[in-house]
């Protein structure tokens, strides 16, 4: 067995952890890109595209780093465009369809509120490259959060219609946030090695960010249920395959194509 194949056969928790960090922003960036040219106003169109590009930028750095750590010669493009659905480690939350504008901004809000303590925690990572990526991404997450939180309050406390839509979005997305904080061996190992942080350690900070905004918006978080999505373990929803088909079509049709 070649070294590359051997490396791929036995998942290294460090690489596995980096892929989780990389894949969620990649997939959310892809989702947000779908808004390009379709947002309710031109100004918001640019704002969503900016957010999408920030997220894809984070993913590029992390995938490049993961590929280098893996040492099997895979670069960012190969990891993004040539892995199959089950190999993606993104949380299920980010692959769900955009829905309406309310759901889109609410997801950005929930996700950026999660990325904030995540990047803060990773500033102290023993993986120096990861710490540097966290420092850059933290500023971006702060802005994403600010922009999205603003919209959550505007729509939640807006008209009857906007409130109804925001509440429907919250009911739809909320169950998928449990996965963000569900720990497992990969995260424990990354945390034990001083490389990463466990999802469970982020929940208190996340709630401290999210709940006051929901309250200001006149929204109440649904009760937690036992439902636990498994995207970061590679088990995705029915929406992921369609998303990847679109995202990967160029590399599948023209392998190795470059801009």
């Amino acid at each position, binding site marked *: 067995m070649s070294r590359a194949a051997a490396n791929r056969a036995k998942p290294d928790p460090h690489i596995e952890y980096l892929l989780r960090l990389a894949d969620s922003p990649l997939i959310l960036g892809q989702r947000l890109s779908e808004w390009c040219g379709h947002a309710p106003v*031109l100004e*918001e169109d*640019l704002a969503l595209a*900016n957010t999408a590009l920030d997220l894809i930028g984070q993913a590029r750095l992390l995938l490049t780093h993961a590929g280098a750590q893996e040492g099997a010669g895979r670069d960012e493009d190969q990891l993004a465009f040539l892995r199959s659905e089950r190999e993606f480690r993104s949380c299920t939350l980010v692959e769900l369809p955009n829905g309406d504008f309310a759901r889109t901004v609410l997801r950005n809000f929930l996700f950026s509120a999660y990325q904030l303590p995540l990047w803060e925690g990773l500033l102290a990572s023993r993986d120096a490259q990861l710490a540097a990526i966290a420092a850059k991404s933290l500023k971006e997450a702060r802005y994403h959060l600010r*922009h999205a939180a*603003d919209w959550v309050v505007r729509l939640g406390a807006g008209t009857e219609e906007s409130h109804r839509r925001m509440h429907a979005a919250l009911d739809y997305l909320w169950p998928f946030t449990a996965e963000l904080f569900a720990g497992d061996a990969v995260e424990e190992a990354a945390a034990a090695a001083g490389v990463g942080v466990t999802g469970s350690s982020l929940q208190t900070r996340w709630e401290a960010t999210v709940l006051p905004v929901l309250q200001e918006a006149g929204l109440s978080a649904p009760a937690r249920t036992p439902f636990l999505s498994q995207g970061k373990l590679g088990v995705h929803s029915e929406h992921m395959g369609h998303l990847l088909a679109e995202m990967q079509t160029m590399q599948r049709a023209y392998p190795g194509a470059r801009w």
Partner: protein
Amino acid sequence: MDRNEWPLWEVFIRSRSGLDHKHCGSLHAPDARMALQNARDIYTRRMEGVSIWVVRSDQIHASDPEAKPEMFDPAEDKIYRHPTFYKLPPEVDHM
């Protein structure tokens, strides 16, 4: 406020090396807070600025283009208003 149309705002950006905010365009937003965020997303994507001002376009009072002759033409032949006829003492070189 008209519920269907956000008001127009004028955007002024101060660049990294600049001392003054320069007008760079306009945008629509329901209030100042979002006008600033939109300005950030539209006009500072390529590191154009370090500070943003926004002002409601309807708060700007403009001179009447029709009044151009009496407003600006009289300055045309007052060349002595330019400080080019004075000999500067060497201590204040490059004024």
